[in-house]
């Protein structure tokens, strides 16, 4: 913005993007997309991963420069060259990944975000002003607490408060509720909605949760593969119609029906305790039994010990005490035990936890069996040909999109990395399956395929432990539901009898 130009109008204002086109080399990320956000409205931006939602908002915020197209802010055409220009116009963005500094206090984070941080900060005065600001705000955060010590929900509130503190009046929220319990999500979105209704704020929210779109948004814009697929008033649309617009004509894998009854106990945890990297107890004496032909879902907001529990089961972390048994035998996560009991693991962030990024797709698929016949002779002479033959078969069977079996696996998209891990882990017999957030960040097609595979493994008699932050996924797949909070299992119910509000309350620790 040029100095001396009129300041942005007071109150809420709208933003229009007209015929936005964005090219990255040969790839067309946005193709003449139009977005119209009315002043004082709550607008939802829907689309699958890779549909261009993030690219579109990053063009609005000045991180990217659109190849073509114009942006109108409050009805005036603006050239937004960088995020600072966008901030000066009153545009703010809350990112999916927190931009707070964890080792600093909430107050330090808020003051630091200002453009005019004084050379020497007068903390007593700043604290007084911050408290006065908070008193006007709908939600509270502990100013003196370190960000690393507050809950994910409070961090998300902090991110939003930071934008309001900076007097931004057009907020872009990128999947703001992915780390919140349903109750927290409703609280935060409800308060923002109130501010929108009062005409103080305009909100553009990227999301994939139809429930939130239906409950809070006025208008919706749907993108598919870089193109505008649909737009309209939420009140005139149904979730089904929106989902169809998002996916287009793509065929989804059909999930097999739930068949068979649970059998004998396969995976037993008795008073398992583990510490996190900082040395604090993250998993607090948990006990659990998963039976054959049963999916047990572990629900909880991230950071309540789920990660450490899965790491113990995967052999990435030592349990401090307690006992794990698989089919009655003590289990210490050795390769031999995993092989003997046909254990499979789908850890979260598969590229980091289940793959070697620089090695080929074929090598990664062979990790479990690479030193056995037919992949190896005498346990050490590797038969590269057999790797490729097996990989080709699994690439076709699991629809892994890769140029060749020899492509490094890090070159694949998230969904295809997860498919490759799925091929390795579920390709043979499975007696115990441990899956952690298996669908995080994946598109509909990949999610449908992974859900179908997990259900099929269950029907074949596998004991499945499914750890997920996505409550909908757990309600859809699991037979039993357990809620983890502060490292303990605080609630258990048959999924068919589970009450969503009770589950949500336990997730929040009430």
């Amino acid at each position, binding site marked *: 913005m040029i100095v001396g130009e009129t300041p942005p109008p007071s109150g809420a204002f709208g933003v229009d993007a007209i015929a936005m086109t964005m090219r990255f080399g040969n790839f067309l990320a946005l193709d003449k997309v139009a977005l119209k956000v009315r002043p004082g409205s709550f607008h939802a931006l829907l689309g699958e991963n890779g549909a261009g939602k993030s690219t579109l908002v990053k063009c609005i915020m000045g991180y990217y420069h659109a190849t073509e197209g114009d942006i109108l802010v409050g009805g005036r055409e603006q050239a937004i060259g960088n995020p600072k220009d966008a901030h000066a116009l009153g545009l703010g963005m809350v990112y999916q990944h927190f*931009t707070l500094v*964890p*080792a*600093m206090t909430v107050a*330090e984070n808020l003051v630091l975000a200002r453009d005019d941080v004084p050379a*020497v900060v007068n903390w007593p005065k700043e604290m007084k002003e911050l408290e006065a600001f908070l008193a006007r705000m709908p939600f509270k955060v502990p100013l003196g607490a370190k960000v690393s010590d507050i809950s994910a929900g409070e961090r998300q509130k902090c991110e939003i408060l930071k934008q309001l503190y900076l007097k931004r009046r057009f907020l872009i929220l990128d999947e703001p509720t992915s780390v919140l319990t349903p109750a927290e999500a409703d609280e935060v979105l409800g308060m923002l909605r109130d501010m929108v209704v009062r005409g103080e704020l305009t909100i553009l929210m990227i999301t994939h949760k139809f429930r939130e779109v239906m409950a809070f948004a006025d208008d919706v814009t749907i993108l598919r593969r870089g193109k505008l697929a649909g737009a309209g008033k939420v009140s005139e649309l149904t979730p089904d119609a929106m989902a169809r617009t998002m996916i287009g004509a793509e065929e989804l894998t059909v999930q097999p029906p739930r068949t068979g009854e649970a059998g004998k106990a396969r995976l037993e945890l008795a008073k398992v305790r583990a510490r996190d*990297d*900082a*040395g604090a107890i993250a998993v607090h004496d948990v006990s659990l039994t998963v039976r054959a032909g049963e999916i047990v879902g572990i629900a909880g907001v991230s950071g309540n010990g789920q990660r450490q529990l899965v790491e113990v089961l995967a052999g990435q972390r*030592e349990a401090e005490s307690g006992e794990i048994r698989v089919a009655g035998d003590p289990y210490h996560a050795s390769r031999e035990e995993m092989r003997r009991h046909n254990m499979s693991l789908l850890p979260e962030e598969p590229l980091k936890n289940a793959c070697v990024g620089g090695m080929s797709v074929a090598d990664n698929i062979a990790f479990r069996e690479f030193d056995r016949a037919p992949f190896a002779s005498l346990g050490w002479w590797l038969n590269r040909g057999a790797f490729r033959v097996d990989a080709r078969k699994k690439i076709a069977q699991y629809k892994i999109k890769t140029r060749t079996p020899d492509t490094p696996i890090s070159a694949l998209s998230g969904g295809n990395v997860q498919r490759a891990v799925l091929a390795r882990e579920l390709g043979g017999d499975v007696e115990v399956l441990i899956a952690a957030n298996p669908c995080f960040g994946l598109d509909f097609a990949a999610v449908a395929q992974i859900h179908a595979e997990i259900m099929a493994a269950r029907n074949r008699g596998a004991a499945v432990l499914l750890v997920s932050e996505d409550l909908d996924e757990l309600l859809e797949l699991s037979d039993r539901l357990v809620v983890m909070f502060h490292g303990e299992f605080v609630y258990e119910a048959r999924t068919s009898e589970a009450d969503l509000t009770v589950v949500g309350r336990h997730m929040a620790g009430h």
Partner: protein
Amino acid sequence: MADGSIGLWTVPLAVLGGAIRVSTPFLFVSLGECITERSGRINLGLEGTLVMGAMSAYGISYLTGSPWLGVLAAGITGALLGALHAGICSLPRVNDVAVGIALMLFGTGLAFYLGKPLIEPTAPRLPAIDFGWWSDIPQVRAALRVNVLFLIGVALAPILYWAFRTTRWGLLIRTAGESSDAARAMGHSVLLIRLRATMVGGFLAGIGGSFLSLFYPGSWNEGLSSGQGITAVALVIFARWDPLLCLWASLAFGGAAALGPALQSVGVTSGYHLFNAAPYILTLAIMIITCSPKRTLTGAPAELSITR
């Protein structure tokens, strides 16, 4: 007991004197490294900076006759070496630890080369303040002869502690060190912040070097530094990146370094070299006690390459 002989009391007194005298280079290097590491980068080259600082301080003091100009020259030399480190590290895919090791060897090598003609002449030394005037015992007076640089260093520790909390620069350095994403999202240049932090760190380490050549031991030779620079880097980790703890840790290391000579002076000669190794043994012991494979270090800046 004869005059001037205070028996075994010599040992704790010498350790105290040593804590004050020997700790000064530790203190400056560790405070400098503390600033650099809080910005998210490790500069292992401070050993080289220390030796270069010692050489340039001695040279300038000899040429101009003013030891304080020597101190300034040492600081500027250190800042330039810091800028070199930061400059190389700001290139893509450069590892700061490897660059630091290279600069450590470069700094010491260059100092030995340029410092050859300085081994013979005597340069004016830094003055000291006599805090032991009230005592008749020479050992007490020797122990309490305190250099001004030590006092500056002692004052600097709480100033840094305060600055990390309450100044814009302190907050920005911490942001760059804890989350470069957050710093970038706020529109700051992480590379620029780290360049400045590394230069200030180098400046302080250079001053630490000037103390070696201009006060204690107080001459220029190739055996001047016995690894104080690199020990001080380890000391920052031990001090959990806290300037105040850096002060206490420096005093402890200074005291440990004075143990060997102190015991020798009272006639304990067996194991002299072993006692001389006390600071290094202390380093190892502290590392073993405070490190664990099961958890990360508390207080470590998240962007540091050793903690990522």
